[in-house]
């Protein structure tokens, strides 16, 4: 574990840096809070300081009344505000500031939600993209399975025994030569952690059905679906045009299909037959 104290007068405050797909964030805050990340995300540790995310305990805030996860990001004057009882978060990428004030009773999952939000914005501004999808590696390439909540992302991961799962919820997409890469993230469950990334081979919109088949997805619908599954960034009117342009660029290089599937691993046979 690599945790540094900013100085002897601030021993109760530490910092810890993690990196995902080349995007680094340095968390600073109370020992207990930062340590919870250092333990849970130990394999993502990085040394050079990254973009700072400050976590500040504030007893003046009311007790949290529920998970912070329910808070929706609001964008005002270029800042992302994330607020709910017990939490006051502000992310200003232009000024290089991300700060969450939270009641001491905040849970690690609440803090992680803020860090994830800051990461999504930082990644987008660095040319990458956080994508609500399960990333599964098969024959050395990655397939991104996406769809609305309950469409089967976690199910698809479970039905792929022996294959590395980059994440069953959120993957990072980065430009590579040629094409794009899918990267593992600490946001969700993984399997076979040694595999961190793979070339992105196809985007697959999950549809539960009584048979397995692939159908091309019309480009316009694809753009809408993909934008809808780009968390945080898709709530920012100032980034919407760039978001659509980025997905347009990805769709020029990576095919997208509807994947109709039953709750069985037979969908991999269809993928192998048509996309392998």
């Amino acid at each position, binding site marked *: 574990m690599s945790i540094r104290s900013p100085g002897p007068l601030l021993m109760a405050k530490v910092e810890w840096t993690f990196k995902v797909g080349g995007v680094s964030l340095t968390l600073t805050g109370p020992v207990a809070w930062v340590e919870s990340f250092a333990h849970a995300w130990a394999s993502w540790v990085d040394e050079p300081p990254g973009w700072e995310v400050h976590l500040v305990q504030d007893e003046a805030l009311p007790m949290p009344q529920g998970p912070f996860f329910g808070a929706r990001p609001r964008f005002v004057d270029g800042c992302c505000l994330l607020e709910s009882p017990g939490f006051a978060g502000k992310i200003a990428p232009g000024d290089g500031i991300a700060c969450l004030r939270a009641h001491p009773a905040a849970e690690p999952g609440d803090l992680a939600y803020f860090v994830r939000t800051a990461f999504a914005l930082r990644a987008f501004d660095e040319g990458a993209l956080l994508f609500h999808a399960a990333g599964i590696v098969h024959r050395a390439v990655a397939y991104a399975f996406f769809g609305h909540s309950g469409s089967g992302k976690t199910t698809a991961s479970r039905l792929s025994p022996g294959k590395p799962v980059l994440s069953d919820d959120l993957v990072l997409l980065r430009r590579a030569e040629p094409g794009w890469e899918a990267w593992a993230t600490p946001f969700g469950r993984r399997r076979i952690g040694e595999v961190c990334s793979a070339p992105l081979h196809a985007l697959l919109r999950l549809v539960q059905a009584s048979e397995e088949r692939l159908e091309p997805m019309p480009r316009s619908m694809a753009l*809408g679906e993909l*934008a*809808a599954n780009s968390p945080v960034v*898709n709530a920012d009117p100032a980034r*919407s*045009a760039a978001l*659509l342009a980025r997905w347009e660029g990805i769709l020029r290089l990576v095919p997208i299909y509807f994947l109709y599937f039953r709750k069985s691993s037979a969908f991999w046979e269809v993928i192998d037959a048509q996309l392998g």
Partner: protein
Amino acid sequence: MPNLDDVLSPAPGVVSQESEGELVVVLPEQGKYIVLNGTGADVFQSMDGQRSLEEIAAILGERYGVPLERTQTDVLTLAQNLLDRGAVRLRDE
């Protein structure tokens, strides 16, 4: 239901992009989107805060050779749909 006299414009923050003859309209604050066909795209892109729905229906009727009565009904229906989804707003709002 909107009236033919109404003037609509895209809601703040709404972004649209043409793709393969259709128009994707993204509603960032809702994290949702709408896909409009070519005719729907014409109507949406004519909602510029200047032209009334009646004027848009007349332009559409002329462009596609469709009776005015029908284009007026179609434009009003689409306008209601877009208002319901928060994609457009009335000029006076």
